[in-house]
């Protein structure tokens, strides 16, 4: 899956699926090559995420997570270790743990990239 946040898309990317707002209204059809105008209108019409061809968002996330400092990862693991009981040999609980950990890591990635963006803008 190549689902990207509208803030992360760039001109020239190609839609794998139709871009829709939260209400399910199609804003732009699949196969369209994105222009500046498209990206602006996504934001105006409340499209938050789009599916882009040839992008592996899991891969992107993994790379971003690998770039997180070990301190951040360790503190997330410590926090979740205290919150969760032993999930071994319990596939459902194990899956819940994995998803929550992924969501925490993703949030940490967003916070880091947000901070970098702010620094770039300031300079």
């Amino acid at each position, binding site marked *: 899956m190549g689902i990207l946040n509208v803030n992360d898309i760039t001109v020239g990317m190609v839609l794998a699926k139709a871009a829709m*707002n*939260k*209400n399910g*209204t199609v804003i732009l059809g699949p196969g369209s090559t994105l222009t500046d105008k498209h990206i602006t209108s996504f934001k105006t019409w*409340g499209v938050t995420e789009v599916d882009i061809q040839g992008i592996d968002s899991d891969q992107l996330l993994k790379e971003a997570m690998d770039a997180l400092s070990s301190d951040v990862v360790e503190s997330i693991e410590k926090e979740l270790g*205290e*919150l*969760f*009981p032993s999930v071994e040999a*319990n*596939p*459902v*609980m194990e*899956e*819940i*743990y994995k*998803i*929550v950990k*992924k*969501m925490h890591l993703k949030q940490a990635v967003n916070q880091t990239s947000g901070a970098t963006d702010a620094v770039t803008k300031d300079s």
Partner: protein
Amino acid sequence: MPSQKIHRIINSMGELPTLPTIYMKLSHLLNESEPSIKTISGIISEDLAIAAMVLKIVNSAAYGFRNKIGDLQHAIVILGLKEIRNLVLASSIYKIVKEFESSSAFNMQEFWKHSIGCATLARVLAETTHLKSPEDVFTAGLLHDIGKLIHAGHLHEEFDAVMADVAETGSQMSKSEKKILGFDHAQTGGALADKWGLPRETVNMITHHHLSYTPNALTKEMAAIHIGNTLCIALGLGSGGEKRVPLINQNAWEILGLRLSDLEYVMQRSSKLFEDSVSIMDFE
């Protein structure tokens, strides 16, 4: 624990929170075959705060209408009666919560958020597994921990002892309650819901939300509340005072029939909806 004893305790407590009149009136209308929009609108208009919230919700980004909807009757058609009734309930729980003296160990604001979080997860679970009435599951989710409020408001010393025990041992709240009180907040909440005259199914969903054992009459709806509560604690959406994520009852997981591969979708979507609800209700 005989339920008679809990009823006796409930009855001896004196002033208990009541369901708002507007909730009762809307419930009554739901039983009619074709309630008129005009009647519904008349009832909602009695509470200006609710009327304003209904309009705010239909005009939020989640509904994506281009033009502002300023007409209450139009808003009612869009949201539906059950949805509005749930909104009334969510905001009344908030009012009840605000009236309580908050003990230092128990954060009422977080408690209210936990109720919204559990209700949202349970509803998304109900929708994903095609249960017949996700709105009713949402209602039970809102009320699943209402027993904690009763304990906090009427059994001060015992409640503080329970909170201290949870902090010290890290055990589930219901276990500490059974040790100290002899019954838990799920039983108290169920008894209160019963006293309020809520449907038997709702009472059961509240009473059995921990599923520390599997009752004979386990339903998919009960499983949805139980799993929704666990996921809500795992996601940290508000807090009902638990220190650890409880384990999911295996029978509940099987009867609900959610695919493991759908879990991530359910959790992501619910988190988003939760943020939306909390910000729309403006109670922060």
